[in-house]
């Protein structure tokens, strides 16, 4: 069997009608949206609504992706992936082609969006991504093939979504699909076992990718090369510590990385202000809980004081009584 890239594998043009064999739904193809190793995605119309239809001559990968999409729908409040609308077969020219239909997620991919709207959106979108990833991780999955091409920004208001779930893997298993640049195994920084830190590594690489849109190859490899690249980029300065932490797998959850990113952003806005403010602002924000603690201490001190007084007075009273008795 030869695995070509799937382009031009199916003779599907604008206007082709796809008839489902099992559910008898009719889809009218409008154009090709993209293709990958596992199939071609088309924009189609169904009951006057736009949908995305993915077709593959490999029924296995269709079923496998449908499984993932189904379990995505069970993750509450996580609209990270597209919702699944239909799964069916299409009989054409004596062949049976499996396909599935999902919600059409429209918008530019992550890098084009940031290029268009400015760098200030980077942190916002990464924060959105991290909270969605957290929900996915809590449901026992790892996304696997995280990369800017798979991330679409819809809106307004801008919201990050994932379009390719082919790499999504149950935690503890081997990652199903990955892209070298975003894979920690490639950089020699960890295994390909699916755990939350695998995704967080990819998020860090996406941040690096924002500063180096054309990516770069591994040379000496490892952490040193990545560190060097992060240091060289002015754009990455505010995220430096977060990126390095994530690259080394030091964050245990997406939420932890998210929190760290928020704190970092606040720290970096402080740096841009005057020296006086710089001293007061981060202190106030980072230690928002500090005044509370001091108050508690005071309260504790008050109790001790009262006790001491009572003790002292009762001591004196004791001596007084003692003297009286004698």
């Amino acid at each position, binding site marked *: 069997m030869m*695995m070509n890239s799937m382009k031009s594998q199916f003779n599907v043009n604008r206007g082709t009608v796809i008839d489902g064999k099992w559910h008898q739904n009719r889809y009218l193809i409008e154009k090709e949206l993209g293709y990958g190793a596992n199939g071609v995605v088309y924009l189609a119309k169904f009951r006057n609504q736009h949908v995305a239809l993915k077709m593959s001559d490999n029924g296995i990968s269709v079923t496998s992706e449908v499984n993932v999409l189904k379990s995505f729908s069970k993750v509450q409040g996580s609209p990270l992936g597209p919702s699944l609308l239909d799964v069916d077969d299409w009989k054409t020219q004596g062949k049976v082609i*499996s396909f599935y239909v999902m919600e059409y997620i429209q918008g530019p991919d992550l890098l084009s969006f940031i290029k268009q709207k400015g760098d200030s959106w980077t942190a916002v979108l990464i924060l959105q991504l991290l909270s969605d990833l957290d929900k996915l991780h809590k449901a026992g999955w790892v996304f696997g093939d995280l990369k800017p091409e798979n991330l679409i920004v819809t809106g307004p208001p801008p919201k990050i979504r994932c379009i390719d779930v082919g790499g999504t893997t149950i935690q503890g298993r081997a990652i199903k699909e990955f892209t070298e640049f975003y894979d920690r195994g490639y950089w020699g920084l960890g295994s*390909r076992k699916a755990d939350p830190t695998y995704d967080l590594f990819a998020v860090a690489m996406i941040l690096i990718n924002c500063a180096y849109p054309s990516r770069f190859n591994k040379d000496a490899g490892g952490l040193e090369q990545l560190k060097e690249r992060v240091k060289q980029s002015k754009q990455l300065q505010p995220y430096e510590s977060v990126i390095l932490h994530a690259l080394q797998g030091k964050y245990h959850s997406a939420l932890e990385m998210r929190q760290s990113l928020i704190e970092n952003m606040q720290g970096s806005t402080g740096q841009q202000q005057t020296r006086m403010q710089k001293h007061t602002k981060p202190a106030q924000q980072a230690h928002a809980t500090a005044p509370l603690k001091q108050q508690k201490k005071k309260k504790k001190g008050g109790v001790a004081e009262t006790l001491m007084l009572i003790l002292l007075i009762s001591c004196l009273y004791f001596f007084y009584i003692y003297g009286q008795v004698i």
Partner: protein
Amino acid sequence: MRTGTLKQILLITDGCSNQGEDPIAMAALAKEQGITVNVIGVMENDVIDDQGMQEIEGMAMSGGGVSQVVYAKQLSQTVQMVTRKAMTQTLQGVVNRELSQILGNRQTVEDLPPDKRGEVMEVVDELGETVELEVLILVDTSASMKQKLPTVKEALFDLSLSLNARSGQNRFSLFVFPGKKNDVEKMLDWTPKLESLTSIFSKLTTGGTTPTGPAIREALTYFKKKKSLRSLLSRDDDEFYEESI
């Protein structure tokens, strides 16, 4: 649960065979013995000609495996993808056979309604994660491969990284052809760790003919020897599939 073993030959080459038996026939012979043949063609500055392409596709087709022709740069990604894809394909085949026994009329997964397929796929996924895997890597070391060997080494490293992330056992062995004296030469005996091949690659010399057919035939006997030894201790692998699914 005792799991059976999947057996694969991974052939990495950059051109046509020019000596000995027809490699496509030898790949078919492998398939008859339950061994899948995957073939990867590597190009760098040269291009694999039509005849070479046909041979590569032919070997994978008759060997029941997967083939792909790539530039050296993409080799790592390809090697692990081809191996995994072939695993899924084999497991799917096994599951299909079971299904047609249960359902009759040569029914396969594709004949089930899409909703039911998901459950079958979960079984295949689960098996792919836990099944034992033996990969015999067969590397072409004819003169034109000289430049590509460092990339091959890296790709094999990457392969062990991918496969060792599974919970199932892996065993690898490495053979090169042509060998110093014979058509094929063993460089690394069955081992779960491919990391040990670093030192081997620096010692490799390239040159000579491309006896792809004889190399596959030789490689088969190596599986066999091992199997006959193991079969004294364990049950036949096919039996497992009938019982476990």
